[in-house]
């Protein structure tokens, strides 16, 4: 099945520069329907208002971290199956293990490029 390029995507990062970068890269890949949140708490509020088809989140945020957000998403019946990609500078093996155990769909380590983002998107959405 073809990937719906109109998919609603929520990107979450406390650095506005990173939000711009991810949004721009998604646009280059054909995904224009992108909302932003600057921490996990804001993301949770946005998810109450809108159903997202993909969440791309940083880990190191306060007060609600990306891991907190992931656990929240996986614990809610409405969102538990939403693909969730962690994009983070946290690269220790224990971080990857904890994220996977919490149900992350894929894991991108910063700094990253468009090619990596595309590959990880395709791994969770299908080829496009």
């Amino acid at each position, binding site marked *: 099945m073809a990937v719906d390029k109109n998919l609603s995507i929520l990107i979450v990062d406390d650095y506005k520069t*990173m939000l711009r970068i991810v949004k721009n890269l998604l646009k280059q890949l054909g995904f224009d329907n992108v909302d932003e949140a600057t921490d996990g708490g804001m993301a949770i509020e946005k998810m109450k208002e809108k159903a997202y088809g993909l969440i791309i989140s940083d880990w190191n945020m306060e007060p609600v971290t990306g891991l907190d957000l992931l656990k929240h998403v996986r614990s809610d019946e409405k969102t538990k199956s939403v693909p969730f990609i962690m994009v983070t500078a946290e690269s*220790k093996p224990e971080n990857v293990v904890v994220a996977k155990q919490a149900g992350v769909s894929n894991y991108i380590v910063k700094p990253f490029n468009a090619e990596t983002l595309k590959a990880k998107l395709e791994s969770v959405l299908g080829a496009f």
Partner: protein
Amino acid sequence: MSNTQAKLGTAMLKSLISLREQKGAVNIEDVGAILESMAHTLHTSDGEADRFLREEIRKMAAYIGEANKEILALGANTQGNNSSNLADASERLGAVVKATEEATGRILDAAEEIQTLAGKMGEPAKPIVAAGMRIIEACNFQDLTGQRIAKVLKVLDHLETRILRLAELFRTEAANANGDGKDNSLLSGPPLPDNAATQADIDALFSGLQPKK
């Protein structure tokens, strides 16, 4: 422990308790003064253990005096403004983060403008669009430098707090350790380049892990 050592330990404890009752608190200079006094008391004792103890106490008193000067110097204002040296360092690092964020914003503005204009020029301009993409990708640096500096700022803030508390040694303020109950052991921030795992390392680990059941 020699009889003299036991007596000295008791004497020191009594002196500290008495001082605290008189003054309400004992500071580091008081400890140094007590140690000097004890060293003087031992002056007339000739036993080897007591000579050793006398010398050790003198060294401790001298060390405490020096440590006290260093601690006060760290908290001192030598910048000609209202901030301590550590607070000034924190402010400067904060300014670096702000400046890099603003500069990165301007770089992204320009790169996006290039992509928009080149996008209208069709196929021949594809290399320009690709170059614009590389500029945007390179702007990842601002996120990483910002996180690294944020870590350093946290350490400086913690250091300043600890130093100020050391300077008020023996006061009875309760420790205010991390009280929000959160486990921050997974939040290391960006590693140094020599220690950083590559995406290939992460992919190999990730694909080998069992998904959550």
